[in-house]
């Protein structure tokens, strides 16, 4: 068998060693090959009298098993097709479909023979679930190994017994923490919780596992299959610990998810109900809840954007194929402000030498100090700190840029200043060097005029704070060439961030669309909507912060300047944004946001939490008639949707994947939706257009759907459907 995923070796003691080694993959994942081989192994353990017991391990140094192959999953499509053929309901088919691995693992632990697992490395998701179904678990004593059930982070939950075995091993409360947060544990932590029973040197784990199997030919039953089983920490509706765990846990999860995440509700329910049931009934319930979660498009949207598209982007989905690797060795960082300092930090951490240049030495040094401060906060070792700081050279001398193979510019957002530093840099490094601008608003094509070879000029747009924000938006100017794109993407891979690639436009993709969310919030304030209603609804719909709060963070003066610059650039074509009058009024009132302690919020000097500025209502009178929360949500959502659709129609975006990733990781757009394009596909484009037309009538042209969206709606197409057709 060429695609064998599990090797079977029976030793002289009758112990069957099952070595998982998925062919052609660097890491074991649960796919069709592995499932088939595991089923065969379970059958042999059950029926072959020569087999006295078994030990599972991995043949890969990369770890045990990293979880299910999410790319290969298509619950929706498979179930719909099967339902059509079998005459069963889609839910019934889904239920049967999702319980395969779970049933297999249950057969493994009830096969009547002792089974141990030797965990040489990471075991995540389904990988850990396989381990939990083994009677004895030995882990290698490497503290960098992680065990966990991270499914929750991509819209799923463990469906192969994990929601039932983990609480029965470690107790409901700690298990909920790992299930709901997707947190990892080290082998030592796992030992403390009983998730593994032994930690041993890596070289000995298989022998230890075999020794346990040999020593326990009859006493190996899982605790939950013992008559005397007692739930650790107690369980049941009349158990006070159990009750308190859920009363508190429900509230915390509700608060953190704003009730927007199906899988979070399902995890709580399946643990709550399952803990009160016999084990096999509880497993069946787990499959039912799992089917319910995957039946909702929310989970496939989240898997696609948060996992599949994200990994593909990081592996170079948008990289020009014919350009050889262009690793960055030395980056010239122009401007040592907040952005420049952050970019210097992540570059140096990735092993890239950095020349950090600013107008005066104090500013450059301050930029370097940023890295020192952050590393100290993270309690980085002195050696590592010295190594990272050693890579950053703070200077005012352009001559020091010599030898840089990538330049990133993050100076003040005015054309003139940018053009000056661009030319000064070219004089030293030459126009063959790739030059990236971190502008967040100024079109790249115009800025590229200051570089003699505009094909080497590109936008590399970071988000603040750089060391925390995962996205980098690569902006392709009219004349930008494939080498610049490849260089930028290879650099983003080096600093381990997620890239999207967009074409040039004012505000590009992320700033432009995010700006509409803020503007719509301001417009509502100007119309007399209660500010708290705007802010709370924004957060409750899944945006990280309200539009007023985020504008305070960005700085109202900056919003004002950007508006003025745009007005200047566009002349007669300029249409004032719906919230512009609000910003102008705030400027008149001297309120610049958090930076001067005066914005839409007040920032008490005693350090107590910020609160909405009490005089806001005197300056923006609150109307007697208020919109419903649903109205506010619709405006905030659809204003963003229509702008992302326009970016697609105008060619700023070339793929819906870029649009969804950029929205979620760039401005925190409702992660439960999978991004604006997933959201529009799920709502259905005809409905989207209908709603936009209605909103246009009420609120104006800014809601008008682009022609492309109308055309797609008419043909009943979808963004991802068309993308798949194009790829095929």
């Amino acid at each position, binding site marked *: 068998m060429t695609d064998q995923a599990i090797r079977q070796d029976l030793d002289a003691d009758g112990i069957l060693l099952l070595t998982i080694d998925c062919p052609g993959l660097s890491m074991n994942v649960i796919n069709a090959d592995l499932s088939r081989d595991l089923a065969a192994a379970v059958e042999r353990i059950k029926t072959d009298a020569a087999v006295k017991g078994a030990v599972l391990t991995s043949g890969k140094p990369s770890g045990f098993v990293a979880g299910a192959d999410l790319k290969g999953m298509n619950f929706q499509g498979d179930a719909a097709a099967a339902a059509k053929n079998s005459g069963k309901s889609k839910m019934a088919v889904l239920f049967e479909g999702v319980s395969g691995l779970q049933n297999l693992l249950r057969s493994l632990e009830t096969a009547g023979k002792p089974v141990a697992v030797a965990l040489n490395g990471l075991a995540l998701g389904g990988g850990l679930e396989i381990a939990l179904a083994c009677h004895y678990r030995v882990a290698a004593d490497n503290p960098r190994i992680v065990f966990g059930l991270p499914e929750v982070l991509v819209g799923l939950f463990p469906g192969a017994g994990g929601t039932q075995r983990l609480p029965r091993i470690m107790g409901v409360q700690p298990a909920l923490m790992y299930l709901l947060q997707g947190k990892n544990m080290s082998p030592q932590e796992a030992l403390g919780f009983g998730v593994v029973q032994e930690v041993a040197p890596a070289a000995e784990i298989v022998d230890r596992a075999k020794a346990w199997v040999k020593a326990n030919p009859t006493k190996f039953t899982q605790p939950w299959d013992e008559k005397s089983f007692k739930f650790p920490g107690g369980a049941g509706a*009349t158990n006070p610990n159990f009750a308190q765990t859920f*009363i508190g846990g429900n509230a915390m999860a509700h608060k953190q998810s704003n009730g927007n995440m199906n899988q979070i509700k399902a995890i709580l329910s399946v643990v709550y109900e399952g803990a009160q049931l016999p084990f096999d009934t509880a497993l069946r319930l787990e499959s039912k809840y799992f089917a319910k979660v995957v039946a909702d498009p929310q989970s496939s949207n989240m898997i696609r954007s948060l996992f599949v598209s994200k990994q593909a982007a990081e592996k170079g989905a948008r990289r020009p194929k014919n350009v050889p690797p262009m690793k960055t060795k030395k980056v010239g960082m122009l401007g040592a402000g907040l952005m420049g300092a952050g970019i210097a930090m992540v570059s140096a951490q990735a092993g890239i030498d950095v020349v950090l240049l600013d107008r005066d030495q104090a500013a450059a040094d301050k930029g370097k100090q940023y890295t020192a401060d952050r590393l100290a906060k993270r309690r980085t070792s002195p050696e590592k700190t010295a190594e990272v700081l050693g890579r950053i050279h703070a200077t005012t001398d352009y001559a020091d840029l010599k030898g840089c193979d990538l330049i990133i510019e993050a100076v003040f957002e005015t054309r003139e200043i940018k053009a000056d530093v661009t030319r000064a840099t070219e004089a030293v490094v030459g126009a063959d060097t790739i030059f990236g601008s971190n502008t967040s608003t100024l079109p790249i094509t115009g800025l590229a005029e200051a570089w003699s070879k505009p094909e080497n000029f590109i936008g590399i747009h970071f988000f603040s704070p750089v060391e925390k924000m995962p996205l980098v938006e690569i902006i392709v100017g009219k004349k930008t060439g494939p080498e610049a794109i490849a260089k930028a993407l290879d650099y983003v891979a080096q600093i381990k961030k997620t890239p999207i690639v967009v074409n040039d436009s004012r505000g590009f993709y992320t700033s432009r669309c995010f700006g509409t969310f803020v503007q719509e919030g301001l417009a509502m304030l100007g119309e007399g909507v209660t500010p708290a209603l705007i802010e709370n609804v924004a957060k409750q719909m899944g945006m990280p912060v309200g539009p007023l709060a985020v504008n305070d963070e960005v700085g109202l003066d900056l919003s004002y300047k950007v508006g003025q610059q745009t007005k200047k650039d566009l002349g007669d074509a300029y249409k004032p944004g719906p919230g512009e009058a609000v910003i102008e009024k705030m400027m008149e009132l001297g309120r610049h946001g958090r930076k001067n302690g005066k914005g839409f919020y007040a920032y008490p000097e005693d350090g107590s939490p910020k609160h909405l500025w009490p005089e806001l209502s005197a300056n923006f009178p609150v109307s007697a008639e208020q919109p419903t929360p649903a109205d506010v949500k619709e405006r905030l959502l659809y204003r963003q949707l229509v702008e992302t659709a326009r970016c697609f129609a105008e060619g700023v975006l070339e793929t819906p994947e870029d649009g969804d990733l950029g929205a979620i990781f760039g401005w925190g757009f409702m992660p439960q939706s999978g991004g604006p394009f997933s959201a529009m596909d799920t709502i259905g484009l005809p409905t989207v257009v209908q709603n936009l037309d209605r909103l246009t009538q009420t609120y104006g042209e800014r809601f008008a759907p682009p022609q492309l969206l109308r055309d797609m709606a008419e043909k009943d197409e979808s963004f991802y459907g068309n993308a798949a057709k194009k790829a095929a």
Partner: protein
Amino acid sequence: MAEAYIYDTVRTPRGKGRKDGKLHEITPIQLATQMLQAIRDRNQIDTADVDDVVLGCVSPVAEQGADIARVAALNADYAETTAGVQVNRFCASGLEAVNMAAAKVIAGEAEFAIGGGVESMSRIPMGSDGGAWPMDPAVAFKTYFVPQGVGADLIATKFGFSRDDVDAYAMESQKRAAKAWEEKRFAKSIVPVKDVIGEVVLGHDEYMRPGTDMQSLASLQPAFAAIGEQMPGFDAIALMRYPEIERINHVHHAGNSSGIVDGASAVLVGNKEIGAKYGLKPRARIKGMASIGSEPAIMLTGPADVTTKLLKRLGMTVADIDLFELNEAFASVVLRMMQALDIPHEKMNVNGGAIAMGHPLGATGGMILGTVLDELERTGKQTALVTLCVGAGMGTATVIERI
């Protein structure tokens, strides 16, 4: 249809609902038993004429479980034929029990029926019965479950009651209760509780703090700020229902919320004929009763809703009611009802309430019905409305009228 008349009301004094409370050594079945015995003996009725005993109890588990109403009737040596049923409408259970007793009389199902309730909060703590509402994740999410205290603070925030407002209300409750005790206004209904050797263990409401002033109240920390703002953060959930509010102002504390106490109550309801048989004079007629559901997250705004509903059905207005009795679960609940229906404080809880004397959950409805009937008689007034706010968003009310 028959009319339902109130012939008598009894209640225990309320003991502090703690291990050092005077009623802590008395079992809940004893509290209920002694009230049933008292109401029988005071009126010298043959319990064979009592068709049913309806008792409210909010945590009907353990020693309050297994239909405490029937078992209390048996334990009180009632006729074997007297049935018993325990009901739970959270804080309004006691009043609901009276309403059900009255309904049985009106419908002709019962000659005499007893309504009332029992709760030993010191022995069976609040929440002992768990329940899907807060625990079951699907239900907790769907109903936006938050504890009542957070709802009470939300009422204060939404309807504009400051910490001073609620504290001032609480101080007045203490003042009125102290005066009522001083003038023995509760004497008619109070039945002292006796221990196993027949000695009185408690003859007065133990929880009161007559010396309470604004300074002492101001020193108390808000009780629901921590669970609201930090762990587990119930405020955020309440605000999902009330997004127009920026943040909840936590104003309630032990001094302006109802006290946790032990106690029991019983109300003897019957038709005209059965009263006449024993030569009993009806003290009041039950003119009408109602229950209603209201928004469950804010939870405690039902009293105004149910009052409006009931008065409308009876063709009455707020002005037709001489005295209002609203359980003082939290100060903001009473302030809101007075604000919503424009009820003057002089007509509301004239002898204090649960902030001063405590709120033995299942028993309270029967207790405050007796309190207001005694007051009508003392002052020569005619009509009273009794109501309580209720968990999960409800209100229950009863209008009584002296004959």
